[in-house]
């Protein structure tokens, strides 16, 4: 069953602009993770934020978590054409076995040069 839903489903921007993707989930979590998937390939882990954290940075990535609203956002600053990919949030814990990741449906990001 789906836990997370990303918004928007698709996003198109120019190089240099910032891209923001949102994720909402339904039950309590231990942590939330973001993954990237290039077209036709496997997923790559980007960043993990624990339930007791509110914000985390990694390079050009900034993730926020609001457990009261059961939502997270991923911000990619100064985007590049190479950032073109699908981005998925995934949650761990809560009502689910803590070793299972529950994925959202993803946001397709297109960055035009």
């Amino acid at each position, binding site marked *: 069953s789906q836990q997370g839903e990303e918004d928007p489903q698709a996003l198109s921007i120019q190089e240099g602009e910032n891209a923001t993707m949102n994720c909402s989930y339904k039950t309590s979590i231990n942590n939330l993770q973001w993954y990237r998937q290039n077209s036709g390939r496997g*997923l790559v*882990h980007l960043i993990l934020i624990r339930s007791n954290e509110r914000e985390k940075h990694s390079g050009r990535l900034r993730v926020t978590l609001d457990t009261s609203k059961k939502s997270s956002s991923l911000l990619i600053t100064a985007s590049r054409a190479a950032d073109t990919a699908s981005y998925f949030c995934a949650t761990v814990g809560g009502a689910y076995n803590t070793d299972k990741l529950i994925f959202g*449906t993803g946001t397709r990001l297109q960055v035009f040069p």
Partner: protein
Amino acid sequence: DVKVTQSSRYLVKRTGEKVFLECVQDMDHENMFWYRQDPGLGLRLIYFSYDVKMKEKGDIPEGYSVSREKKERFSLILESASTNQTSMYLCASGTSGILYEQYFGPGTRLTVT
């Protein structure tokens, strides 16, 4: 670097055939997972395994079985392939515990005709 390999990138099979998808990881991870990915549905967990010879059903196990005879290898079996099993199949591995990430293989695009 963690490496997860899948036996085929593309596979075409006929309805009713028995299909084996192989996955191998080289990081001594306890956990291994099989997902299928379909447009608009995101990633759905088929089966997972916490240890050798151990398996747990995911969200959509019907029509599939798995085998884990060795720690590094996790096989997905389609007992009698059907057209509705045409999909992208992704294997992943990961360590135990709540603060962990999953490492994905490149995926196998299976077409059942």
